[in-house]
């Protein structure tokens, strides 16, 4: 099986400071990988490098494209990369307002992404938008409301609908449940798990919440000071952590 994403020696520096350094891994179709670490550990920098938002200073990010097979997205042309980010890739931001157009209706937010890949018939777009609102448990009567009138949890679900409507194969998520209260988080986790299974998605999830990765991710990578210090099966890394830093992370979780 060809990996969907092959990451080779990816580094990004902020001047003399390390953002992330020498990151290597393969992600296979259907796999969900969590990336954990404290603030400043380089996990968001890494995610942004992989998603094409930040240019890596070294390394390759090889994605198995539908048309041409494995292709380095770092050296590919800007239009080709943008096409990928509209079709096969999706990016779920921590703050829904970074991933939504707040002045456009909920239906419009979903429809816009469809139009970007060529959908033109209003009836089809509206029907798909309605279908996706249902899937993320937003009442369809809200289709013409603007996201600014939605709660935080609804905005986050709308962002997910907008991202997944084009049937991407790889989803980047930056703290998807951050800032939501726990009951809303549980609902979102359940939703994401269902979508990952039904659509056979691969996902990279950056979070500092170990409970979230335990429930969502098959594999886990632990970062500290820009380096990957440990990686493996999620339950193995959490239950039998090998690196001093991972042991500290796991033992620092408060018990409810």
């Amino acid at each position, binding site marked *: 099986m060809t990996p969907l994403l092959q990451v080779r020696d990816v580094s990004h520096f902020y001047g003399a400071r390390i953002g992330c350094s020498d990151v290597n891994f393969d992600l296979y179709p259907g796999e969900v990988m969590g990336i954990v670490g404290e603030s400043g550990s380089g996990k968001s920098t890494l995610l942004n490098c992989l998603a094409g938002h930040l240019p890596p200073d070294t390394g390759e990010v090889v994605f198995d494209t539908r048309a041409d097979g494995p292709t380095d997205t770092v050296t590919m042309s800007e239009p080709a990369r943008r096409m990928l980010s509209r079709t096969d890739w999706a990016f779920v931001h921590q703050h829904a307002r970074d991933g939504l157009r707040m002045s456009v209706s909920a239906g419009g937010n979903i429809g816009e992404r469809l139009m970007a890949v060529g959908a033109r018939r209003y009836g089809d777009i509206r029907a798909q938008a309605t279908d996706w609102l249902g899937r993320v448990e937003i009442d369809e009567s809200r289709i013409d409301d603007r996201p600014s009138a939605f709660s935080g949890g609804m905005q986050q679900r709308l962002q997910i609908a907008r991202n997944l409507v084009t049937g991407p194969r790889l989803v980047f998520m930056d703290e998807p449940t951050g800032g939501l209260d726990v009951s809303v988080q549980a609902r979102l986790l*359940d939703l994401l798990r269902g979508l990952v299974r039904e659509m056979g998605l691969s996902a990279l999830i950056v979070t500092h919440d170990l409970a979230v990765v335990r429930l969502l991710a*098959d594999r886990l990578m632990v970062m500290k000071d820009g380096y990957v210090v440990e990686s493996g*099966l999620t339950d193995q890394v959490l239950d039998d952590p090998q*690196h001093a830093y991972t042991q500290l992370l796991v033992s620092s979780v408060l018990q409810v």
Partner: protein
Amino acid sequence: MAMIDISGVSKSFTLHNQGGAVIGVMENASLSVAAGECVALAGASGAGKSTLMRMIYGNYLAGTGRIVVDGVDLVQAEPREILALRRETLGYVSQFLRVVPRVPTLQVVAEPLLALGVSADVAVARAAELLTRLRIPEALWSLSPTTFSGGEQQRVNIARGFVHDYPALLLDEPTASLDVKNRATVLALIREARSRGAAIVGIFHDAAARAELCDREIDVSAFAPQRAA
């Protein structure tokens, strides 16, 4: 060929945040379980029964040695190979149920089948059958098991572990906290799994259950590291 084959396995824990203390728990553990065989891990509390079982599941990392289940060496395997093994071949009934909040019990039990690509109605029917057998009232099926009693959670966990006919099964205290009737049901499930050819490794503090089900016992304290005199 043995379904589960363990040789020369050692394990120690290094506690980096407690002065780097190294605690050796196992040395040169070897064990082999054929299809259709049920083997009990015995030994006092703290002898390493659960540790060994967790290593067979890939939940703990072995220091050295080989742990081969159905041809896959868990000590060397990639995460995705271990996940595929767990999905298709290797079942594990732990002592604790860990689920996503809000997911209904019926769904929790059907999940291993859904992950194998079994159609939703077949998976749900099979889950319902097991929940009935394990006496979980139908009124509870649509609720999340997080609010259930300890015994009910344990039975949901067992239903989940038996919903797919795994060729290899790891059972950690499957009859703990069960009443007489439910204990009998669980013993029957284990016996059925064994007769369809599953290789079973179990920890049973319940001596009667152990005597009834198991072909042999392995004393895990034999694998304890030799302490320096």
